[in-house]
């Protein structure tokens, strides 16, 4: 009797959790697409999907951190672009000639730009979306102004090889071998690492607290300034790494590839259980959210839907995610 009640409560809790919903929706969608287009379930397609969405997945983890702390960041695409582009320039003139330096470089650039976001958000107390629309404009346009926005090819082999590196190799009966890309491993490790410190460290719990109720957190004596600064800097660092991964996956550097797709990432974060009201979210959920968007885009291509309709379909999903989030808030605030 007790176990059955327990089971019921547990089931209800899970049903209320959007991540569970997203998980089942993704599985259902995958099965349907698999029937319509058997290529979807091939190893090549699955591993390609995991590799191509690694950078977007990392951006989503960054977004989740900001959302948990009660903010929002639309400038991450510019941060990633700046980090990626400067990395490319320095690799081409041989200033950066190994992976470790490149990695530290993008983290540093991302961290600094994120820190600037955090300072402005704290100083002005204006909604972070207005601040980050501003910094997005500054970062991206200064970059394009000074570099003229040329595409960068012929990157050094250590970077290109890293992008093609596979941790697990699988031989397919037809076509080239495929396998789990190192870029996917970076994405999943970042999500896991972030999930652990958010859950088990003091600073992680405090981020949830300021996102849930900033005034209460202030009265408890939390240092709001440092916490916000930390959130934006960490997110900036992840955005820098995302830029690194994006360039490695694409094998060349295109400065206008990332900017303009901010909403995909915010949608993935919300689908993954984060709330725009702050105080809620999970890096592991964000992995699912990213995969769902990836599956949808993948399906649109496999089902040969004309590319000019893709944004409308994604827009529809984003609206549904928004509705879902709004209804959930209404439901939980009524209790």
């Amino acid at each position, binding site marked *: 009797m007790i176990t059955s009640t327990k089971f019921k409560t547990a089931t209800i809790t899970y049903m209320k959790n959007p991540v569970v919903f997203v998980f089942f929706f993704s599985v259902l969608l995958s099965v349907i697409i698999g029937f319509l287009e058997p290529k979807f379930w091939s190893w090549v397609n699955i591993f390609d999907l995991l590799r191509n969405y690694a950078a977007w997945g990392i951006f989503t983890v960054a977004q989740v951190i900001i959302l948990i702390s009660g903010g929002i960041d639309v400038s991450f695409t510019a941060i990633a672009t700046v980090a990626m582009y400067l990395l490319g320039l320095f690799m081409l003139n041989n200033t950066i000639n190994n992976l470790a330096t490149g990695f530290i470089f993008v983290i540093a650039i991302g961290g600094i730009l994120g820190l600037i976001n955090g300072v402005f958000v704290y100083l002005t107390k*204006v909604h972070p979306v207005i601040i980050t*629309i501003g910094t997005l*404009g500054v970062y991206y346009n200064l970059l394009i102004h000074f570099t003229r926005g040329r595409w960068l090819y012929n990157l050094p082999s250590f970077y290109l090889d890293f992008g093609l590196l596979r941790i697990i190799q699988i031989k397919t009966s037809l076509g080239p071998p495929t396998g789990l890309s190192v870029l996917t491993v970076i994405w999943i490790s970042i999500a896991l690492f972030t999930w652990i410190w958010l859950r088990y460290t003091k600073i992680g719990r405090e981020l949830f607290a300021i996102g849930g109720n900033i005034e209460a957190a202030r009265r408890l004596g939390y240092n709001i300034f440092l916490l916000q600064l930390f959130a934006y800097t960490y997110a900036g660092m992840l955005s820098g790494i995302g830029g690194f991964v994006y360039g490695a996956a694409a094998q060349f550097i295109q400065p206008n590839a990332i900017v303009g797709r901010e909403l995909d990432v915010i949608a993935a974060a919300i689908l993954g259980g984060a709330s*725009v009201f702050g105080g809620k979210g999970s890096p592991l959920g964000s992995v699912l959210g990213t995969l769902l968007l990836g599956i949808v885009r993948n399906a649109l291509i496999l089902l040969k839907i004309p590319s*000019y309709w893709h*944004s409308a379909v994604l827009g529809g999903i984003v609206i549904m995610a928004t509705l879902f*989030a*709004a209804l959930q808030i209404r439901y939980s605030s009524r209790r």
Partner: protein
Amino acid sequence: MKISIFSILLVVILGLTIIGLYIGTNKQILSRVTLETIGYQMPVLGFLTFAQVIAMVNGGIDLSIISVANFTGIIAAILMKQYAFSALMAAVSGMVGALLVGGVNGILVAVLKAPALLVTLATGFLVKGISLGITKGYIISGLPSSFVALGAGNLLGIPVSFLLLLMLTCGLVLMFSRTAFGRSIYLVGANPLASLFSGISVKNIQLSVYICSALLSGIAGLIMAARFNAAQADYGGGYLLITVLICVLGGVSPSGGAGRIVDVFVALSILQLISTGFNVMRASAYLATALWGLLLLGILVITRKIPKHVM
């Protein structure tokens, strides 16, 4: 009308901008050609800015204005080109499309209490997607001359669209200062709960605000299509940042409840003059956008300590 320190400051900045540009562009800023360009360019930005002002004064924000503007232009353009609608009927149909999006925004914000920022970001994304789908990403050009007159025509040398902007400004000043609806927009922006307790239907006000915002964006889209003699899904992407900047420069509080139309109009003139001045001086558009961003951040930092009653 009470004159605040803030308004005087803005007018002084406007004066300094004109003097600075007069020297910087070697007197070209006040030449007939440049002034005419400003007269044709300002209405689009003006209508979009006022669309943003209404939402911001109400304590929200409308990030879908650019998408709605392009959507309206595209509907009108397609109806005229492919279905031989008259200019008036096409414009009206375009506006119906805009109002529909405004209604969706309004319902999501007012009834479902979803955050305006997220709702309008999402509907903007969806509407842009639909525009891309309808046009397949192409530009629709070659519109009938009766429609183009809206963007390129003039009355006694003054552009028709500029006259429309002046009329809108006067109308909004009256609406915000003299009508119950206008005052309610401020009150709901300042304190929704208090407004509710004082008998204002917060739901209806918010719904009307997003419909008004879409209405103005739609008119901006029609003027834009008429001026370019073409419509496309992603015209004017840079305008969004600039409208928020003008609002903040014009003393509209991003948290709602404060801001005056006259001040916003002065701020709009300043930005339009600087923008046109940059073009005359052949400065890079990227540098200009970066500068707008810096200006926005700077103003936000400076004004954070100024209490609302001074504005």
